[in-house]
């Protein structure tokens, strides 16, 4: 039975002039108050809840139509499939500029007028989704075939084939633009398709139309910048996390409201910090720091460290805000999804950090890279088995994901410059994978983090210091070559080239 908010003791009675932490936690726990949960199930309560959510969403730049789609999804169970597919279709139709922007250089090279460029975009999207539909059908008919057993390997080979096709010099005009677009689309939706292919082998798999709707779900569409990472993983995970009755739905939606309110608080905090750090202290951005170093007029070491620390911490805050918005909309729809970012400042090991910082990306790497490797390689050597599987996930998988996500840079910069520029991220992935692999292996061997406060602080600071250092190599731009970044990194420790 949840603890009632109202007790015989008024929160501001003389014995307790101000609400203590427990009281604040009680006030915050609206999803555990029986009366509020009951109210959220009534017609008035539903309207109030959605209105409150929409008001917060507007404050946080979450697109209102997708919020309404989430509410409709929650309250119209018979229409859920149709809502999912329609919202995905509307979102795709509205994103032609996004896809065109990805291959703008190719369109410019081919002197494509706008209508031809849009035709290429729609052709590429249609071709990809037709191919995905056929792939799902194939796996249903052949559940033991190669595509069913090794979907990611097959899809990565398709990506390689598309890379080769798009690079063929004979292609011209809108066909060349469409080939690049098909590669970009494939690199973006590859992971959604992988989850969908996996789901075809389960007993309770949904219809193919539902699977396709999850490629562009409304909870991802309404929030700013696009990501290839499936939030909510695939249909199987979403089925397990869907509210089973009206009470569960009400609790999940109240959690959605709480999460969005928390996001608004984080946004306010972000604005205060940005004002303090970037406006008043005038801390330069990391790109300025690198440029100044390369031009022979480096900033003081303390300023460089400050810039890196702010980029890491401020970046984590912005990232949390973004992920919370997506999960909140999914929760409004009735999916009891875990947060993407959860208390990253409490991570005591490198392995734990990734679970707390980017949960859905970690799950993607575990499912498609870690587990397949773990099940097959070094089975007689436990620590090497864990380390190698972790390296394949956090190193190889991580690099493959980001290279394919930004494959449009190959169209813009050419193969040589794009791959040379990616060397820094490859280095970052290798170091990150080694660190997490060692961390995992130590945990598997039974090593526990210290329980004291000083030990806790020491571990947390070490984890964040590692990521601040790694920031030099992992900022995903291709502007500064690896050698220059290494030189800059060494200069932070007083080592000049």
């Amino acid at each position, binding site marked *: 039975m949840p603890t009632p908010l109202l007790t015989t003791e008024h929160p501001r009675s003389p014995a307790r002039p101000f609400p203590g932490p427990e009281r604040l936690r009680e006030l915050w726990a609206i999803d555990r108050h029986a009366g509020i949960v009951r109210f959220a199930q009534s017609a008035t309560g539903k309207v109030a809840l959605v209105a409150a959510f929409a008001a917060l969403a507007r404050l946080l730049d979450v697109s209102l139509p997708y919020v309404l789609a989430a509410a409709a999804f929650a309250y119209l169970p018979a229409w859920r499939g149709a809502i999912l597919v329609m919202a995905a279709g509307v979102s795709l139709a509205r994103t032609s500029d996004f896809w065109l922007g990805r291959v703008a250089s190719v369109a410019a090279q081919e002197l494509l007028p706008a209508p031809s460029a849009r035709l290429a975009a729609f052709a590429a999207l249609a071709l990809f989704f037709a191919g995905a539909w056929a792939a799902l059908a194939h796996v249903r008919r052949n559940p033991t075939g190669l595509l069913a*057993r090794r979907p990611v390997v097959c899809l990565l080979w398709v990506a390689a084939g598309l890379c080769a096709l798009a690079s063929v010099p004979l292609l011209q005009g809108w066909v060349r633009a469409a080939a690049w677009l098909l590669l970009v689309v494939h690199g973006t939706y590859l992971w959604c398709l992988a989850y969908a292919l996996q789901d075809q082998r*389960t007993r309770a798999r949904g219809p193919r139309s539902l699977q396709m709707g999850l490629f562009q779900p409304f909870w991802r569409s309404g929030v700013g910048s696009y990501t290839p990472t499936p939030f909510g993983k695939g249909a199987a995970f979403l089925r397990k996390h869907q509210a089973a009755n009206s009470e569960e739905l009400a609790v999940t939606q109240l959690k959605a409201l709480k999460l969005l309110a928390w996001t608004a608080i984080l946004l306010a905090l972000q604005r205060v910090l940005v004002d303090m750090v970037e406006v008043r202290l005038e801390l330069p951005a990391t790109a300025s720091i690198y440029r100044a170093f390369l031009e022979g007029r480096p900033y003081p070491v303390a300023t460089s460290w400050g810039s890196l620390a702010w980029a890491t911490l401020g970046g984590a805050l912005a990232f949390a805000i973004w992920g919370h918005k997506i999960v909140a909309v999914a929760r409004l729809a009735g999916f009891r999804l875990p947060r993407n970012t959860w208390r990253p400042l409490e991570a005591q090991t490198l392995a734990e950090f990734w679970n707390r910082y980017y949960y859905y990306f970690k*799950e993607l790497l575990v499912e498609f890279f870690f587990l397949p490797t773990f099940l097959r390689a070094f089975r007689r050597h436990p620590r090497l088995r864990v380390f190698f599987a972790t390296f394949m996930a956090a190193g190889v998988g991580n690099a493959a994901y980001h290279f394919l996500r930004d494959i449009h840079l190959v169209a813009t910069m050419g193969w040589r410059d794009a791959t040379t520029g990616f060397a820094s991220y490859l280095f970052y992935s290798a170091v990150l994978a080694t660190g997490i692999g060692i961390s995992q292996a130590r945990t598997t061997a039974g090593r526990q983090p210290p329980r004291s406060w000083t030990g806790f602080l020491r571990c947390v600071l070490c984890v964040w210091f590692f990521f601040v250092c790694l920031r030099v190599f992992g900022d995903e731009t291709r502007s500064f070559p690896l050698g220059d970044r290494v030189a800059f990194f060494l200069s932070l420790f007083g080592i000049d080239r």
Partner: protein
Amino acid sequence: MTSSDKATLRDFMRACLASAGDHQDLSDDESLFMSGRLDSLAMTTLIVFLEESFGVDFAVVGFDVERVDSIAAMESLVDMGTVWSA
């Protein structure tokens, strides 16, 4: 799977949950991984346990999260592994 084997499996899963700070009851059909009660590191520990204690070879039976997501599912998996290796 014998009742003794099942008790061993159940004790192992309780220990995994306890190390994750989860001391709630565990029923045979309850979801362990897809519900988020246990994470991927616990899954690797479970895989090794099933391989060493029951001789399950995932390269032969194939790996699927649903097959290890509950005590009942693991019981079926072990029985299937026994049939495959017989």
